[in-house]
């Protein structure tokens, strides 16, 4: 509780005070709250940055799901004795700093990076490709960094899945595809939900990856907040943007959870 108080509630309260303009330039307390900085939001670039961020986070989540689902299914159901090893391979990248991994990705995608050098040396291209500083590079970086967050909860839910349920479905005339649709998918929904939230929420606020891999076109909320706080020193507007971001994410997660747990008792 003390930990939460010091590192969560207190900073959050300060941000709230700033967002409602209750602290003035001289750091004096200003008793009258104002919505000025929230109104400023709609006159700025912020809404379009928000749109882009949500879109990027959404794309990251979907891609992670599409990649992660078959991977965790394979590990949990067909992995057999190699299960632990395979999961270790998924987790090992976590032991390397997030920043370092993103820099590593840069050395691969760079104009003088591995891909370009290789393609050039085989004569497949005559000009180095522009792989970095665009949306695709940011997306690649995000998927790469967040994939384990998707795989872990998915793996957990598939591990719990009773394999005899699939046999039961088989003995009742359901082929592999229909067994998957009617049994595997509904019973791993909680894993899909948890994984999606674990990827989506940090992905919306991501700022290091777009900073390092992106160009101007991939400027995201995280970057906006960072710029407002540390470059423009506009703590008030920065705070209001943060508050709106948090409110939006909480709202979306709540709606999503409601959808995911719809009609499902927590027996699994």
């Amino acid at each position, binding site marked *: 509780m003390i930990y939460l108080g010091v590192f969560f509630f207190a900073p959050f309260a300060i941000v709230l005070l700033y967002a409602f303009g209750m602290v003035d330039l001289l750091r004096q307390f200003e008793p009258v709250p104002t919505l000025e900085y929230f109104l400023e939001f709609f006159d700025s670039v912020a809404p379009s940055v928000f749109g882009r961020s949500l879109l990027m986070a959404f794309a990251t989540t979907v891609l992670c799901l599409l990649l992660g689902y078959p991977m965790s299914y394979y590990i949990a159901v067909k992995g057999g004795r190699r299960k632990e090893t395979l999961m270790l391979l998924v987790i090992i990248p976590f032991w390397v700093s997030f920043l370092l991994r993103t820099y590593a990705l840069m050395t691969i995608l760079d104009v003088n990076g591995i891909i370009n050098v290789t393609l050039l040396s085989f004569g497949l291209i005559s000009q180095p490709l522009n792989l970095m500083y665009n949306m695709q590079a940011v997306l690649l970086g995000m998927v790469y960094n967040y994939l384990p967050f998707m795989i872990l909860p998915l793996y957990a839910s598939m591990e719990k899945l009773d394999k005899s*349920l699939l046999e039961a479905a088989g003995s*009742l*005339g359901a082929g592999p595809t229909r067994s998957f649709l009617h049994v595997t998918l509904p019973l791993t929904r909680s894993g899909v939900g948890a994984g999606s939230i674990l990827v989506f929420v940090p992905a919306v606020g991501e700022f290091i990856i777009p900073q390092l891999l992106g160009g101007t076109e991939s400027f995201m909320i995280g970057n906006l907040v960072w710029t407002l706080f540390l470059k423009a020193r506009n703590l008030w507007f920065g705070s209001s943007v943060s508050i709106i971001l948090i409110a939006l994410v909480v709202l979306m997660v709540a709606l999503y959870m409601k959808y995911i747990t719809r009609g499902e008792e927590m027996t699994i």
Partner: protein
Amino acid sequence: MFEVELIDVIKRFGTVTAVDHVSLGVKKNEFYSFLGPSGCGKTTTLRIIAGFEEPDEGILKLGQIVANDIPPYKRNVGMVFQHLALFPHMSVFDNIAFGLKMAKVGKDEIRKKVEQSLELVGLPGFGDRRIHQLSGGQQQRVGIARAMVKEPGVLLLDEPLGPLDLKIRQHMQFELKRIQKQVGTTFIYVTHDQGEALTMSDNIAVMNNGRVEQIGSPREIYDKPETQFVANFIGETNFLDGSHGRLGEFMCKGLPHAVVVEVGEERTREGVLSIRPERVSIGPDLKGLDNLFDARVDDIVYQGSHVAVSARIGDDLTMKIRANPAVPLKIGEKTRIGWNKTDATVIRLEKSA
């Protein structure tokens, strides 16, 4: 003509041979049991019939068709699982309807059939319940209804009554038999409970170490066990080592004179005589039996419906006897024991044992 037939089927898991040269045939509308201790290969054999395991060698025939390569969902075989494997995210109705939906049966037809099968298993009106709202016995019934609603040619049951307690178990045994008679489907039933197999089955295959030890009706299995394993696994018995004597006689070690056996039984050169404890009579004035021996009462344990008596013949041959509690017996007293020749059977010695 068999409904299900296995011909010399072998299944190995790594270095372990789970099913070892198993051959058997199940007739239409028969209640057939695979009986044996855990790890004897009975469940693996069942899974081969269901299609969850493929035999490494040998042939599986369903009807006239060689079915080795047919995937489970294309076989006309239903299965009731040991741990039920009911779909936890579906209602009772949807669980039972699942097979019909897969077969693209019309909605009204599904409703009608599901209701009928709920009726059959004694759960009318339970369709809207969730699986976890049911008791173990009720879940078991749903599992049976789900497997039966498509009217499969063969229903496989993998120790379906295992998790239930004794009272419900006995009730469900009776219910299963009723359902089987009512629907007239071939049942293949896996169990390690000899009582269950004896009361329910038309035929039993007793299995041990992946092999079939004996196939026969419950009466044959109990009265004329062919191996020591069968005699021992099904019910209690007394084993007396011995060898052949004259026509109709068997010489047992530790007995003062030869045992009279049915003609033909004595041909075994070396063997054991198996006599069920409840087939042995005891009492000081015993007479008129084919075999009579003087004995001494070593121990008496009262067990309600009967008393379990240990009686010694000579110095070191002890026999277990189930006697009527009305017979006057005292520990240490001299008495007589005896049995008729039809009550004992001679078992060949197993070469490996």
